[in-house]
C-alpha cells in the first residue's frame, strides 16, 4: 500500500513531464520546419537570381552550390531536430537540466521506474517531496516560454519575402539592351573605332568558312558540348521565361519565318541585307538594334539581332522605296559602289539567311554547337597594316662618325687558295645575277 501511494504521488510529476515533452517537441518541430522553409527560400532566391542575371556557367555552378548547401542545411536541421526531440526517457533529464533541479527530477523518475520500488529507500520521501515542491519551477510555459520559435519563423518569413521580392522586381530590373550592329565585312578589316563597348557587332566569318550546325563541335559557348548539362540550361531558360516573359524564338526560326513571309529566295534576301549594311558601313554603322542582355551568349545575341532586324525590316517597308534609294547615296553625293563592300540599294528587303552562318536546327538547351561569324562585345581584332608604298626614306646621318675610324676593316678573307688562272672563271661563277639569268 505505501508503495502504491508513493508511486501514485508521482502522477502529477509524470503528467507535467508529458506536457513539457509535448510542448518542447512541438516547438522543436516548428523550428525545424521554419528553418527548412527559410533555407529553401533563400536557396530558391539565389537560384532565381543566378538564372536571371547569371551566365550559363554561373547558373550551373551557383545553382549547384545553392542546392548543395540547401540540401546539407536541411539534413543538418533534420538531425538537429531529431536530436532535440524528447523521448519519454530523455524528457526528465532535459527538464531537470533546464530548471537546474540538480538531478532531483531525473533521479526520481528513473528510480521510480525501478523494481523493487523505492519505498524502502531512506531518501526517497525527501526526493519526492522536493520534486513536488519544485513543480512550479519546471512548468511547460516556463521551460518552453514561446509556442512559436521566433528566430526560425523570422528566418522563414525573411526568406519568403526575399523570394517574393525577387520575383516581383525581376521583370522591372531586366538588364538594359545592347545595341547590335550588323557588318558586311569580316571584323579583321574593320578599324578599331568600329568596335565599341556599348554594342555587339555581327559580321560574316573571315575566309568565308561555312557556319557549322554539327552538334559537338567546339565553340566555347555556354551550350557547347563541354558546357553545363542541358537540364540546367533548360531550367535557366524556363526560369527566365517564367519571370521575364515568353520564350524567344529558337535559332534559325526568325530567319526562316522572315523568308516565309517575304516569299523570296535566300540569295535575294542576302543581297538586301548587304545593301542595308553597306549603307551603315559608310554612315552610322548601326542599322538595327535589338535588345540583348549583356550576359547573354553569342547565340542568344544573334537571335535577338534577327528579331530586331525583322522589326527594322517592317519599318523600312513602311518607309518605302524612296527611303532605300536615299540611303544608297554616300555623304559626298557619289553613288554607292556595288563592289565587295555591299550590294546595290534596293537589292532586297529580307534578311540574308546565311548572314550569321547557316541556320541551325538546334533548340535552346540541347547542348549542340554552331559556328557564328563574329559577335564580339566591345573589343575586336586590330586590322593588319598595309605594306609600305613609295621610296624608302633616306638613311639618317651617322651620329658618331669618329667611331668609324676604329672600326675593323672589312677585308675579304681568303678561304682557299685559287690559282690565278682560275680567277675569271671563279669570279664569273660567284658573281651576283638576277633570278633566271644564265651563268
Amino acid at each position, binding site marked *: 500500500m505505501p508503495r502504491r501511494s508513493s508511486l501514485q504521488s508521482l502522477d502529477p510529476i509524470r503528467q507535467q513531464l508529458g506536457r513539457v515533452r509535448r510542448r518542447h517537441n512541438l516547438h522543436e518541430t516548428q523550428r525545424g520546419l521554419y528553418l527548412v522553409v527559410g533555407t529553401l527560400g533563400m536557396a530558391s532566391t539565389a537560384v532565381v537570381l543566378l538564372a536571371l542575371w547569371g551566365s550559363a556557367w554561373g547558373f550551373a555552378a551557383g545553382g549547384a552550390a545553392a542546392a548543395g548547401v540547401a540540401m546539407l542545411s536541411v539534413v543538418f536541421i533534420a538531425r538537429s531536430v531529431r536530436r532535440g526531440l524528447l523521448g519519454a526517457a530523455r524528457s526528465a*533529464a532535459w527538464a531537470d537540466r533546464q530548471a537546474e533541479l*540538480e*538531478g*532531483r527530477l*531525473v*533521479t526520481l523518475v*528513473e*528510480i521510480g521506474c*525501478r523494481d523493487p520500488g*523505492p519505498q524502502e*529507500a*531512506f*531518501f*526517497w*520521501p*525527501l*526526493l*519526492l*517531496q*522536493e520534486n513536488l515542491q519544485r513543480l512550479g519551477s519546471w512548468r511547460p510555459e516556463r521551460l518552453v516560454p514561446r509556442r512559436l520559435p521566433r528566430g526560425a519563423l523570422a528566418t522563414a518569413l525573411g526568406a519568403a519575402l526575399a523570394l517574393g521580392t525577387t520575383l516581383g522586381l525581376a521583370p522591372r530590373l531586366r538588364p538594359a539592351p545592347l545595341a547590335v550592329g550588323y557588318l558586311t565585312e569580316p571584323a579583321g578589316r574593320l578599324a578599331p573605332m568600329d568596335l565599341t563597348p556599348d554594342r555587339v557587332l555581327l559580321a560574316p566569318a573571315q575566309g568565308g568558312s561555312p557556319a557549322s550546325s554539327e552538334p559537338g563541335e567546339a565553340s566555347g559557348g555556354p551550350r557547347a558540348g563541354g558546357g553545363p548539362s542541358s537540364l540546367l540550361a533548360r531550367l535557366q531558360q524556363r526560369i527566365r521565361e517564367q519571370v521575364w516573359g515568353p520564350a524567344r524564338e529558337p535559332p534559325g526560326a526568325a530567319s526562316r519565318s522572315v523568308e516565309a513571309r517575304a516569299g523570296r529566295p535566300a540569295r535575294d534576301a542576302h543581297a538586301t541585307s548587304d545593301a542595308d549594311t553597306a549603307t551603315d558601313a559608310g554612315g552610322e554603322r548601326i542599322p538595327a538594334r535589338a535588345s540583348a542582355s549583356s550576359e547573354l551568349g553569342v547565340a542568344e545575341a544573334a537571335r535577338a539581332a534577327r528579331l530586331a532586324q525583322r522589326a527594322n525590316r517592317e519599318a523600312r517597308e513602311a518607309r518605302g522605296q524612296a527611303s532605300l534609294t536615299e540611303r544608297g547615296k554616300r555623304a559626298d553625293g557619289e553613288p554607292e559602289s556595288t563592289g565587295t563592300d555591299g550590294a546595290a540599294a534596293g537589292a532586297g528587303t529580307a534578311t540574308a539567311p546565311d548572314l550569321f552562318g547557316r541556320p541551325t536546327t538546334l533548340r535552346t538547351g540541347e547542348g549542340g554547337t554552331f559556328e557564328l561569324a563574329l559577335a564580339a562585345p566591345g573589343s575586336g581584332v586590330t586590322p593588319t597594316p598595309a605594306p609600305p608604298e613609295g621610296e624608302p626614306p633616306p638613311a639618317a646621318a651617322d651620329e658618331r662618325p669618329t667611331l668609324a675610324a676604329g672600326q675593323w676593316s672589312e677585308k675579304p678573307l681568303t678561304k682557299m687558295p685559287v690559282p690565278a688562272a682560275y680567277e675569271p672563271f671563279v669570279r664569273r661563277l660567284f658573281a651576283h645575277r638576277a633570278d633566271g639569268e644564265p651563268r
Partner: protein
Amino acid sequence: MTPDVAVAAIEDFRETFAAIRRQVAKVVIGHEAAVETILVAFFAGGHVLIEGVPGIGKTLIVRSLAEALNLSFNRIQFTVDLMPADITGTRIINEGPDGRRELVFVEGPVFAHLLLADEINRATPKTQSALLEAMAEQQVTVAGTTHALPSPFFVLATLNPIEMEGTYQLPEAQLDRFLFKVVLEYPSRPELERILGDTTAAELPAVEPVLPRDRAAGRVEELRRLVRRVLVAPHVERYAADLVRLTHPGGDGEVPEAVSRHVVYGASPRGGQALILGAKVLALLAGRGHVAVEDIDRVAPAALPHRLVINFAAEAAAIRPPDIIVQVLAAGRRRRG
C-alpha cells in the same frame, strides 16, 4: 520514513563534517581541499594516499583528524627493514599464572581506527603487501588465524616524491585499494606566515574532539551507513561507468587521444566504486539525498588518476595522470550531452 527524518540526518552529517573540518583547520593551516578530500574518503569508507614533500603537514593532518574524531590512532614509519609482522602483529610465548606457556597474538599497529603509514614506499613490497588484506578486508591473518580490525578502519599512507633511491614503487594492486590520492602542495605565502606564527607561539592550538570517545566509532559507522543510503540514479551510474571505460585505451566510444596514446592500464571497477561513494558524500554535503553527475565530476580528479598506469612516452612528455583525467572528464561530458 518521512522527509523530515532524512533532512535531519543530512543536517547531522553536514554539521559533524563541518565540525571536524573546523577542528582540523585549527592546526592545519591551508590544505582545505586536501582535508575535505580526506574526510570525504573517510566517510565513504575508503583509504587515502597522500603525496607530498616532507614538512608540509601530512602527519599533522592525520593526527589532528584522529584527535577530532576521537578515534584510536597509530603510526608506522615504513623503512626498508620493516617486516610484515611489525605491522600486523605476531604471536609470542606467554607463560600463564599456572605456569603453562602458550602462544599469544600481540596486535600490531594496524589495529587502530586510523593508521598512518608514513613513507610507505620505503618498505619492501612484501611489507607493503601486508597492508593489502588489512585495507581490503579490514582483517589480518596471522598464523592461520584471522583477526578483525576495529571499525572504522582508515589508512592514510604518505608518499615522498623525492629521495627515490632505496624506495619501492607501490604495486598497482595496492594503489588501487586507495579510494583517493591527495597531492599536498606547498602552502601559499599567507598560509606560510600563519604557520610560522601559530607553530612558534607560546600556546599551540589544540584539537578538541568532535565525537565522544565511547560513541565515536558508532557515530562514524552510523554516518557511513547514511552515506551508503544516498540514492544514485541509473544515469549517474552510467556516467561513472563511462568515465571508467574512457580511461581504458581499448575502451569503447570516443576514448580521448591522451588515453589511447599514453595509458597502459585504465581504472578498475574500484575506480567506479570510488566515484560513486565519494559522490554520495558530496551529495550529502550539498544537502541532497541523491547523487548528481556534478558530484561525480568533482570526485573524479581524486579518485581516478592514481589508478592509471601510464607508459614511458607519457612520462617523457611530462604528461601526468591528472591531465589525462581532465580529458576523460571532457569526453564523458560530451557523451553525456
